[in-house]
Every structure is written in structure tokens, then in C-alpha cells.
């Protein structure tokens, strides 16, 4: 039997190579799509520049006004605290739900059920008006037992604490589910290997399970964070002076509604952009060792 001649190996087939190559078919449709998108963008730009209704000079006048800036500071502060509260509650509740202890499990289930099941708006107003139900807030034994500390509810609950409690507890319920999903995504063999090495339960969680779960936790948490940044505007119903409330107060006085809403929108856009960049770097950190291959979409003629 005769074997065919084997060509000398080379680094890569040269231009005169006999090796066939698969090429992409021409994509004529894409040129029309590019044209359509470009036209639409041009129209948007034209409107933004020429439509007097936008009143850009008013937008720029208020962009850095002290009232707007204090609103932004409040929005950032509230978002950070609410998310911190959400993550802490979320971790605790997620671990409770995953424990084998039936009592812990039931409590966690009840928490998620209640706070996910009632509207945030109702929760906010409820906390704000807590004094109507409990004029005094204290720590002690219920049903007539001794009280250790007691303060009037109107003192304890400000707009800010009401917003934080309402949003934070609600966020905790959602974060609990996100974190639980993340923890469940880690292979059980990882826990077993960690145990076999003599790690204590908390070490197994801290060193082995959580860092791997973060891969699945970070993207939806980024989503929640960005959502919360804008969702804090709901706190304007309890008269908290955050970004949305601050522009509302201005346009209620000056009737420059459109430009001031644009001010708020631009600021939210800026803050969300910063968060998105932060999320990108956090995600990249937790992909260490995973060699993620991100496929970049390419525009080819």
C-alpha cells in the first residue's frame, strides 16, 4: 500500500498554500443598517442641539447648584447604606435559608416572603409613620416586662432612617435570594474538599465557597446597586432631600420642569456609568483562575 507524501511541516500555510479557508459571506444588509442607525443618531443630535425646549442654558445653570449637589450627596449616602444593609441582611438570611436548622430556615423564609411581598412604597410610609403605631420605641421584655431603653418614635425615625429601613429591609430580601443562588452555584465537592483539609465551617465559607459564589453574585448585585441608586428617588415621598426631591423642589418653584428633569437624568447617568466601570473591575477580580474568554462583537465590512 502506498501512503501519500507528507508535506514538510511549516509554521502557517503561506499565500500559495493549497489549504482551503472558510470566509464570511458578504453582508450587504449591514451597510443599510449602519446607514439607518447613523440617520437616527443624527436626528437625535440635531434635536438636542436645536430644539429650544431643552433649555440647555438652564440645565447647565442648575447642574452644579448647591441644592442639586446636596441632593446627590444624599442619594449616594442613602444608596451606599441601603446596599450595605441589604448585603449584610442578605448574607445572614441566605445562610439561614441554607442551614439545616428548621427554625432558622422558617424565619428566613418568612422574612423574604414578607419584604418581597409588600410594596416598598407602603413599607417606607409605614416606617415614616411608625409613631402612629408605637409612640415609644424601646428595648425590653414585651407584654408588660421591664424596659431597658425607651425613646419617642418621632425622635428615632427621621426621613432618613425611614428610607433606610424601608429600602434596606426590602433590599435584604432580594439580596438574600441573589446570594443564595450564588452559594448554590458552587459545586458541593468544593465544600467537601475544604472540610477534608480541616477548615472550620466559617473558613470553608470565607475561603472556598464565597469567593467562587461571587462570580455569580456580582453581576445581579451590580444590577441591584444601579437600580437602587435610581430607586432611592422613591424616598422623596417621605420628604427626604435626595437628588430627585431636590430638582422637584426647584421646578415646583420655577416651573422649569424639563431642564431640571434633564439635570437629574444626567446626574443619574453619570453615577450609573461610574458604578458600571466599578462592576467591570470587580467582576474581573473574581474571574481570576477562570480564564473567561469574552467574545468581542466585531463589525466587519
Amino acid at each position, binding site marked *: 500500500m502506498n501512503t501519500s507524501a507528507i508535506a514538510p511541516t511549516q509554521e502557517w500555510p503561506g499565500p500559495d498554500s493549497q489549504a482551503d479557508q472558510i470566509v464570511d459571506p458578504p453582508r450587504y444588509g449591514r451597510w443599510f443598517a449602519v446607514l439607518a442607525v447613523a440617520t437616527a443618531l443624527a436626528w437625535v443630535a440635531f434635536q438636542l442641539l436645536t430644539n429650544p425646549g431643552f433649555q440647555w442654558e438652564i440645565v447647565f445653570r442648575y447642574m452644579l447648584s448647591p441644592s442639586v449637589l446636596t441632593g446627590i450627596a444624599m442619594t449616594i449616602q442613602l444608596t451606599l447604606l441601603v446596599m450595605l444593609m441589604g448585603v449584610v441582611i442578605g448574607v445572614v438570611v441566605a445562610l439561614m435559608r441554607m442551614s439545616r436548622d428548621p427554625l432558622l430556615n422558617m424565619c428566613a423564609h418568612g422574612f423574604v416572603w414578607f419584604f418581597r411581598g409588600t410594596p416598598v412604597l407602603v413599607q417606607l410610609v409605614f416606617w415614616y409613620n411608625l409613631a402612629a403605631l408605637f409612640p415609644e420605641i424601646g428595648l425590653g421584655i414585651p407584654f408588660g416586662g421591664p424596659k431597658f431603653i425607651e425613646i419617642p418614635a418621632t425622635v428615632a425615625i427621621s426621613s432618613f432612617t425611614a428610607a433606610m429601613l424601608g429600602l434596606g429591609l426590602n433590599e435584604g430580601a432580594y439580596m438574600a435570594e441573589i446570594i443564595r443562588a450564588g452559594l448554590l452555584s458552587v459545586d458541593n*465537592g468544593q465544600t*467537601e*474538599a475544604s*472540610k*477534608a*483539609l480541616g477548615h472550620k465551617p466559617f*473558613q470553608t465559607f470565607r475561603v472556598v465557597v464565597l469567593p467562587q459564589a461571587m462570580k455569580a453574585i456580582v453581576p445581579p448585585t451590580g444590577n441591584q446597586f444601579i437600580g437602587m441608586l435610581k430607586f432611592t428617588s422613591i424616598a422623596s415621598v417621605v420628604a427626604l432631600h435626595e437628588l430627585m426631591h431636590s430638582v422637584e423642589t426647584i421646578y415646583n418653584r420655577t416651573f422649569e420642569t424639563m431642564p431640571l428633569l434633564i439635570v437629574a437624568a444626567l446626574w443619574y447617568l453619570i453615577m450609573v456609568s461610574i458604578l458600571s466601570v466599578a462592576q467591570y473591575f470587580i467582576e474581573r477580580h*473574581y474571574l481570576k*483562575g477562570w480564564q473567561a474568554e469574552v467574545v468581542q462583537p466585531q463589525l466587519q465590512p
Partner: protein
Amino acid sequence: MTKPVSITPDIAAIIAPRVESTPLVQISNVWKKRGNNVVLKGVDMDVHHGKVVCLLGPSGAGKSTLLRCINAIELPDRGIIYIDGEAIGARREGARFIRLPEREISRQRADIGMVFQNFNLFPHLSVLENIIDAPIRVRGESKATATERAYELLERVGLANKAKSYPRHLSGGQQQRIAIARALAMRPKLMLFDEPTSALDPHLTDEVLDVMKGLAAAGMTMIVVTHEIHFARQVADIAAVMADGVIIEMGPSKDVLTRPSDPRTRKFLARSLQEDH
């Protein structure tokens, strides 16, 4: 080509097997139920210091479950396993055994090395971090000491140049050798292997078996769940054949694996050897 991997006798100094007459592992009448399925039906077995025991038998016989009970990854429903005379996962109070808190069980597990079928290296940690984490965190060793020892062990399994790699970038055989090094870094008095080569192709199987042979030669006490009859014949002192949750035959591996007395063992061996060729 597989680089021949040798474990020099000086590993014996690290492992330091103790020559004693009481068995290192005593498995006493262990029963285990999973749902309605009884997977272990009163298993008794002693393993002496420095001995290599191979657990053989068809899948579903309860071999892996028994191994996991020795390490308290699962606790038996009845019966007690003793390591060095200490009950695993429980403390004795008169005639009763009270379950230990999880952190106490962790302390017991630290002395028992375990190697899994799927390696279970930590993918977010480098090879070096995989090996030094438990010695530092659990044993309280300094980072320098742990690192130095990690390189020694990597050298022994022939992978010193992979310290900075991540597990994903290694072949299955390399991952399993790292997993063995990781377990050895804790200076265990007993090593458990749960089908260490079942996820590997024959070529990679040999490099892992070579490491295990070196370990056995150095005097490590080992319990190995395996389907590698040749390895068992060559390396094991004792072979135990399990079926349906009981040990049907146990004895010196040369006898059990060449002249089995139980017809089920004969059938199992014939089938396993047939698959090998």
C-alpha cells in the same frame, strides 16, 4: 511522555508512620442509610499503621460512602469509626456517643488527607495557594514554612514549575497530583483516595498511580477505593471487596485478587480485568 515520578524514602521522615499494634483505623459495625436505601450494612474493618488497603467492588457497593464516613464528611447512622482510638465525629459520655460540634470535627479531619475523584482543587486559587492555605489557616504554620514545604511536595509530584498556575490550566493527571500534594501538606496520618484515577485517561492514570506507589513505599497508611486491579495487586497489603453494603471478602491482596474464594469476587475480578485489556 509521562515523566517518571519518584517519591524518595525521605518522605517517610515527613509522614513519620508510627509502628504500633493497635490499628490506626477501626471501623466498628457501621451502618448508613440514604433515604430508604441502606448503603452500608454493618461494616467492620481494621487498618494498621503503614498498611495500604484497597476497597474494590462494583459501583453502588458502598465503598465511597465508607470512605466518606471515615473522614466524617458523612456520619454513619449506626456504628463508630475510631482513628487512633478516638471516635470520629462523636465524643463518648458513658455508654452514649454525643455528636461533636462541626469545628471539633474539623480538627479531626485535619489529620486525615482525602483525594477525590474530581480532584476538587480550588479553582480561584493558584496551585501554591491551594497547597499552603490549610497549613497556614488550620495548622497555624508561617507562610514561609508552608511555602517551602509546598515546593518540596510539588517537587516530589514532579510539578514544581506549576506553582503559579491555576488548576484550570492543568491536565487531569497534574490536578490530581496537586490534590495529593495538597493533602500531604497537612502531614496526615492517614490518606483516603476516592477513585483517584476514575476521571483520568490511562496515560494520566499512570502518573497518579506512580505518586501513590511512592507514597505507599514511604510507609503512608492508605485506604484506596479503586477499580485498578493491577495497582491493588501491586501495592495493596490488604484488599477488601464490597458488594451491597457489606465486605464480602477481605485479606492479603495477593490471595484475594488471585485466588478469590467468593464467587461474586471472582465474577467482579473477571469483568474488571476484561475491561482493562
